[in-house]
């Protein structure tokens, strides 16, 4: 068993615009089970951050507890990180974000972490539109504690031990839409072509960007009859569109067939291009997205891609009108206006 990665990299691998190689965005060698979907998602995060020329020290990785929540160790070794308590990633991220709005926040969670113990936290962070990317590594089970069904396990899904899930599964995408989340997407760990641009767009989105990534647990939930296995997902996946993210400094170079694509411009000028968009629905319209999701469910499809985006998103700081300067940079002078000012205020009430 290898405990470290060789230091050598491919000599012909390019550097990104700020001079980093992909290796500079990697973490230590994973200790997850071989073939775990979570590792693919980590790799997609690495690739996305490399491609958007992110400065690693400007990002904070936040997580709770679970195999999924361990992954921040396996990407972005040069970034900040906080591995919090089970289900508490959203509140810790909220605190961090309020204290320092200058960082990019990338939260990673599991379906147990988010849909059971952390459900209350998930709900509130979504409705508050906290400026963060929230990646849910969704394997339908509690991987770390040996594969018990989680709250996202689909009704009727068969566990490794052979039992059928008698409960309704929570659809976190449907829930996020209901809560008014401003960026909602679903993807599959085995489809990096889609996942990487989604992560890039999510990181650029001002507000709460939620990606539910189906991520098979090879050890406990990749059996026949499981609806979160590699095979099942591959058979039922239905992409809503081809998806690309074009950062501000770049131009759209691909020639799309006329009328087939939709371009959404984000507040910073970067663009999201949705090509071959399924007919009669509009991802900028939350209700159209909700009905598309319901319809897919009815037809046994797993709808992936960018499901909803609100181009007018206003994140928590804007909603609350906090100062542009991060709170952690405010000095005593800024915060304490002095006795005279206090006196004058007090005097008003005399």
């Amino acid at each position, binding site marked *: *068993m*290898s405990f*470290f*990665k*060789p*230091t*050598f*990299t*491919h*000599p*012909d*691998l390019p550097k990104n615009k700020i001079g980093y190689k*992909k*290796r500079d965005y990697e973490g230590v*060698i*994973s200790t997850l*089970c*071989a*073939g*775990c*979907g979570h*590792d*693919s998602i*980590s*790799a997609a995060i690495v690739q996305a951050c490399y491609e958007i020329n992110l400065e690693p020290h400007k990002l904070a990785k936040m997580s709770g507890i679970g195999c999924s929540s361990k992954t921040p160790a396996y990407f972005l070794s040069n970034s900040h990180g906080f591995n919090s308590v089970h289900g508490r990633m959203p509140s810790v991220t909220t605190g961090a974000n309020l204290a320092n709005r200058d960082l990019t926040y990338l939260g990673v969670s599991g379906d147990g972490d988010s849909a059971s113990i952390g459900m209350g936290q998930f709900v509130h962070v979504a409705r508050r539109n906290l400026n963060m990317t929230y990646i849910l590594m969704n394997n339908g089970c509690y991987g770390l504690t040996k594969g018990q069904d989680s709250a996202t396990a689909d009704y009727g899904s068969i566990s490794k031990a052979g039992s059928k899930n008698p409960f309704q599964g929570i659809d976190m995408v449907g829930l996020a839409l209901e809560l008014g989340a401003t960026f909602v997407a679903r993807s599959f*760990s*085995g489809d*990096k072509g889609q996942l990487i641009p989604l992560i890039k767009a999510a990181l650029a989105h001002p507000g709460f960007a939620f990606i539910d990534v189906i991520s*098979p647990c*090879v050890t406990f939930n*990749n059996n026949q009859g499981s609806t979160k296995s*590699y*095979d099942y997902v*591959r058979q039922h996946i239905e992409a809503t569109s081809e998806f690309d993210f074009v950062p501000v400094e770049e131009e759209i170079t691909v020639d799309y067939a006329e009328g087939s694509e939709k371009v959404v411009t984000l507040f910073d000028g970067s663009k999201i291009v949705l090509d071959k968009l399924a007919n009669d629905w509009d991802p900028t319209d939350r209700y159209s997205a909700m009905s598309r999701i319901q319809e897919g469910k009815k037809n046994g499809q797993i709808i992936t891609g960018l499901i909803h985006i609100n181009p007018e998103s206003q994140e928590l700081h804007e909603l609350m009108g906090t100062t542009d300067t991060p709170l952690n940079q405010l000095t005593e002078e800024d915060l304490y206006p002095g006795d005279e000012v206090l006196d004058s205020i007090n005097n008003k009430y005399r």
Partner: protein
Amino acid sequence: MNPTNIKDPEYFHKVVDCQYACPAHTPVPEYIRLIAAERYDDAYMINWESNVFPGILGRTCDRPCEPACRRGRVEEEPVAICRLKRVAADNKGDVKSRMPQGPFTPNGKKIALIGGGPASLTVARDLAPLGYEIHLYDEWQKGGGMMRTQIPAFRLPEEVLDEEVNYILDLGIYTHFNHYVESMAEILEQDYDAIFVGTGAPKGRVLKLPGYEEAKANIHIGIEWLAGVAFEHIKSIGKKVIVLGGGNTAMDCCRTSRRIGGEDVKVVVRSPFQDMKASPWEIEDAQHEDIPIMNNLPPKEFVVEDGKLKGIIFEKVKAEYDENGKRRLIPTGESDEFIEADDVVIAIGQDNAFPWIEKDLGIEFGKWDIPVVDKLTYQSTNPKVFFGGDAAFGPENVITAVAHGHGAAVSIDLFCHGKSLTERPDPMTNLMSQKMGIHEWMYDSGVVSDLRYAVPHEEKKLSLSDRKIEVELGFDEILGFKEAQRCLNCDVQTVFNTSRCIECDACMDICPTSCITFTQNGTEDELRDRLLAPALNLEQDLYVSDTLPTSRVMVKDENVCLHCGLCAERCPTAAWDMQQFYYNVTKASSGCLVAAE
């Protein structure tokens, strides 16, 4: 692309860069692992079987394996493959008992080997155990050929040479030393079933410039002079020496001069430094012994005063290259340069010479007096006569001579049994899984970052005082171990099983050198372009799987694979396995030799 046929032994053979580049295809990574495991005898025997002269080659090999070494493509320098061989030789115990033990049952065939260099000795070693009666002729009093007459003792101690030459002679070879063969016709008249010519390229070139005749007493021809020194007919040289030439022979001549009286020794080369033929390490060693190398100076004239050599006048030139890279030396117009010298050694090349082969024996000669020899069978146009080593295709090196010897021995064996020489036995190959348990391998898969270790040298003053003191001290066991750990185990192959893969991407994600890509199939050019990392090294193959369920294929660029096994460790279904590939080149003696395990 079509799926790669890994059943073709040449596919994985090519992945083992060093072994593939070695003319004798020595299983390099296997012996390096044995050195790391302190199994020096086993490491020695693997070498002995392949290249016959591990101790000699571990000091003097031209090492074509090293420029090919994969490590040189992922960091600055290749593994010190050559000097590791010496570690095995230096630390081995009694290996003779593991060699074929005579007397061998005669097979009734008798062969003559003309010349006692590495090519002939290899033929002898391969055929003796099969029962051949072998007669070896050499003009000198001992075997070894140019390894004895040319390679100076400070690079190759006589004991090492004697030991390895004797392993072969002790197999019951009939030696005819001090016997210069004057006539091939006479040999053919005898009852030999086959004749092997391994007489080397024994004629040194001269440079008859004005003044040559008068100064002749102090102008020496490099290879003759080195042989004279080796046999102690020549014991000294003047204080001021000019060596002409830029190859390895020039380096040996100048360094030898420094040890037998030369104080102000210069190497003067007509062409630029970067065009010199000498190996970089030999140039370095010469420079380290305070020998300046002067370039762009073609000699014009030997200057003689009172009937004695005074020095040489050189013209000054510069090199210009045309669009085809062809070089022309153009006079700079500056005034000529005179360099003083008491003695001059000319080391500007060697030629083949076969004055002793009559022209009416059916042995055809082509350009430059080089015989017409088949590249596969080493047979000349006289079916009974085979050539190998420098005699066959011009001057090369010891390891090439050995490779020719193996090939010629196979041919001679086939020939003596009336079989077709072109239907040659296949190499022996084997693929063996290295799996010991989940994520546990039988080989040490960790990749260390250590840079190449330098071989310690003898103190300069001491080594210059006596031409028999060996300059290189060799790696000790600890350094040898550390250097051995740098080997990437390229013979442990990544073997892919399409039907097992569930396309989880884990192998692609973990691979430290981005070798693996799952993608749509395409033409080779196009695939090379769109892999995770561009596959620009066209000499390295792409390993392509059958089509996977998602209609993609797995494509692995072999170029910079570290053989770290991480892909196989991260694979949930063991679709990747690490398997050791053993490739043993066809040899006449294979059946008889004790294969080192």
